[in-house]
C-alpha cells in the first residue's frame, strides 16, 4: 500500500475453506430443516436439545471467550426467559411463539440494571456475582405463588393446544421454532463478531489495556455484549420451557444444566472461536450417549476432561486444530490479500 503501485490489495474476510464450509453448511441446514420428514419424534427432540445447547454455548463463548465476562450465572436468564413465557402465556394471553421473542426483549431489559450492578465486580469475583444474581432470581420466582411458588407449574393444556392443533403438527412447529431461534442466535453471534464491535471485542480479548489505548470503550462494549447475550439466552430459556411444558425454580435456575454443561462444551471445543462450541456440542452429546448411564461418574469424567483440556490445551480441540492447520471455517478476522498472488493471505 505504501510504495508498490503495481500491486493492489484488498481486504477480505473469507477464505477458500470458509467458502466450502458455507456451501456444506447450507446443505446441512436444508437437511436439518427437513428433519420432520425423515426423523422420528425422539430424534427431533434430541436435535432440538442439541440446538439449544449449541446456542447457549455460542452465547457463553461470546461472553467469556470474547468479552472476557466469565459468567457462571447464565441460568439466571434461562430461568427468567422460561418464567416470562409462562407468565405471559398464562396471564396475558400472549401466543407462545410471540412470547419467546418478548421473553428475549425482557431478558435484555432486566440485564441492563443487573449489568450496571455486577460490572462493579472484576474478573473472577464477577463470576460469583453472576451466580448470586441467579440465586436471587431463583429465590424470587419461588416466592411467586401464581407461578406455583417453589414447586413450579405446568403450562395449561389450552395454551399448549394453541400452538398447533394436532400433536405431530405441534411437534413440527416446536422443532422449527427451535431451529429458527438457534439459527438466529448463531447468525447474531457471527454477525456481531464480524462487525466493528467484533473487532473491538477481539481486541479486548487479546489485550484489554492495548484495546483501551486504541480508543475502545471497554465498559460499553462489554455492557452491550452482556445485554445482547442475556436477551438471547432468555429467548432460548423460553423455548426450552415451552418444550418441557413445565417449570420450577430448581429446574429453571439449574447451574448444572444451563451453565456447567455449557462451560464444558465451550472449554472442550475451544474457547474464543466460533467453531469451538459447535465441536464441543457434538462431542458433548456423543459423550452423553455413551456415558450417561454412569450418572454421577459421567459428570466426574466431564470435570476431569475439562480440567485436563484447560491445563494441557487451553484453546480446546478447535484451537489445537487451528494452530496446526490455520483453518478457519467461520472467519471473523480480516486478512489483506494482494491481487497478484490472488487469494493467498499475506498477513
Amino acid at each position: 500500500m505504501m510504495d508498490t503501485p503495481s500491486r493492489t490489495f484488498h481486504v477480505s474476510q473469507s477464505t477458500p475453506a470458509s467458502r466450502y464450509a458455507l456451501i456444506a453448511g447450507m446443505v446441512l441446514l436444508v437437511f436439518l430443516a427437513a428433519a420432520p420428514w425423515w426423523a422420528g419424534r425422539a430424534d427431533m427432540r434430541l436435535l432440538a436439545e442439541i440446538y439449544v445447547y449449541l446456542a447457549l454455548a455460542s452465547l457463553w463463548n461470546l461472553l467469556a471467550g470474547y468479552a472476557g465476562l466469565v459468567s457462571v450465572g447464565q441460568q439466571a436468564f434461562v430461568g427468567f426467559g422460561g418464567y416470562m413465557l409462562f407468565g405471559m402465556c398464562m396471564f396475558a394471553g400472549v401466543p407462545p411463539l410471540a412470547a419467546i421473542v418478548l421473553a428475549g426483549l425482557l431478558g435484555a431489559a432486566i440485564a441492563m440494571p443487573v449489568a450496571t450492578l455486577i460490572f462493579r465486580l472484576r474478573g473472577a469475583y464477577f463470576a460469583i456475582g453472576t451466580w448470586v444474581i441467579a440465586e436471587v432470581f431463583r429465590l424470587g420466582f419461588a416466592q411467586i405463588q401464581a407461578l406455583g411458588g417453589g414447586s413450579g407449574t405446568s403450562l395449561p393444556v389450552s395454551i399448549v393446544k394453541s400452538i398447533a392443533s394436532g400433536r405431530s403438527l405441534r411437534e413440527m412447529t416446536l422443532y422449527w421454532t427451535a431451529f429458527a431461534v438457534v439459527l438466529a442466535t448463531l447468525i447474531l453471534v457471527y454477525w456481531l463478531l464480524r462487525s466493528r464491535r467484533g473487532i473491538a471485542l477481539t481486541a479486548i480479548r487479546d489485550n484489554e489495556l492495548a484495546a483501551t489505548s486504541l480508543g475502545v470503550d471497554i465498559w460499553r462494549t462489554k455492557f452491550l455484549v452482556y445485554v445482547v447475550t442475556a436477551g438471547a439466552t432468555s429467548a432460548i430459556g423460553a423455548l426450552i420451557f415451552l418444550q418441557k411444558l413445565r417449570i420450577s425454580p430448581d429446574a429453571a435456575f439449574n447451574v448444572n444444566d444451563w451453565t456447567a454443561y455449557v462451560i464444558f462444551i465451550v472449554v472442550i471445543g475451544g474457547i474464543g472461536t466460533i467453531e469451538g462450541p459447535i465441536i464441543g456440542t457434538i462431542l458433548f452429546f456423543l459423550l452423553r450417549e455413551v456415558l450417561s448411564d454412569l450418572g454421577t461418574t459421567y459428570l466426574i469424567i466431564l470435570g476431569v476432561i475439562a480440567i485436563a483440556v484447560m491445563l494441557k490445551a487451553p484453546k480446546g480441540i478447535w484451537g489445537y486444530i487451528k494452530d496446526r492447520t490455520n483453518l478457519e471455517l467461520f472467519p471473523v478476522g480480516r486478512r489483506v490479500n494482494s491481487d497478484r498472488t490472488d487469494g493467498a493471505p499475506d498477513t
Partner: protein
Amino acid sequence: MDWINAIVQGILLGGLYALFAAGLSLIFGVMRLVNIAHGDLIIMAAFLGLVVTTTLGIHPLLALLLVVPLMAAIGYVLQRTILNRSLGDDILPPLLVTFGLSVILQNGLLELFSADPQKLNAGAIETMALALPGGLSIGVMPLLVFVVALGVIAGLQFIFYRTHYGRAFRATSDNQQVAQLMGLDTRHVFAVAMALSLAVVAIAGVFLGIRTSFDPSIGPGRLIFGFEAVIIGGLGNLWGTLIGGIILGVAQNIGAQINPGWQLLAGHIAFLIVLAVRPRGLFPRIEE
C-alpha cells in the same frame, strides 16, 4: 424481643460465614485466585469429619486434630499438582479449573455418601445455652463457633504480618516476579497459602456439620455466603470479612423473621445493596 434475638443469633451465624470467607479471602490476597470449589471443599471437610468421628468414635471437635492437617495436606498437593499450572495472566484457566474441581467434588461426594443429609453429633454441647438478661439465650455451640472465628482471623492476621511466611505471602501478593527474583519459590508459597486456606476450610466444615445438616449439594451455597462476606467487608481485609459475615448473618435472620422464605433472599439483597452503594466493600484494603 424476637427481633433482638434474631440479630444476636445472626451475629453468631456471621462467625461461621467469616470462617467460610477467611480461606477464600486469603488465597485471593496471595495469588488472585478465586476458588470456585471452596464451598465444596468445606462440605468435603464436613464429610471427612463424619468419617473420622464414626470410624474412631471420637467427638467432632477432637476430630479437628485429624481433619485440619489432612485438609491442609490436600490443599498443598492440590496447589502443587493442579492449581499452580493454571495460574497466569489469564483469569479464565484457574476459574474453569476450580469450576471443574467443584463438579468433581460434588459428584464424588454424592457417589461416596449419597444425597442423604448428614450431621456431626457433638453430644450435650449442642443443646447447652447461656441465659442472658432479658430472656435471651445464646447457644454454647454458636458462641464457640464465633469465638473460634475470632481466633482464626486473629491467627491469620498474625501469620500475615508477623511471620516469615506472612512476609512471603505479602511479597508475592505485591509482585510475583520480584518476589521470585528475591529467591522466593512462589509455587511453594502458593501451596502453603492453599494449605492454610484449607486448614481454615476444615474448621469451617466441621463446625458447619455440627451446626446444621449437610449433603453433597450444598457446597456452592457456602461459597456464595463466603464470597458475599468478603465483598461486603472489603477485599483483603480479614476483620472486614468478619463484619461482612455478621452483616450477612443478621440480614438473613431478619429476613427469616419477616418470612421464612426470605432468609437467603434477604442476605443476597443486603449484599447487592452494599455492592450498589459501596462497590469496594465497607472496609477495602487492597487494590484489585
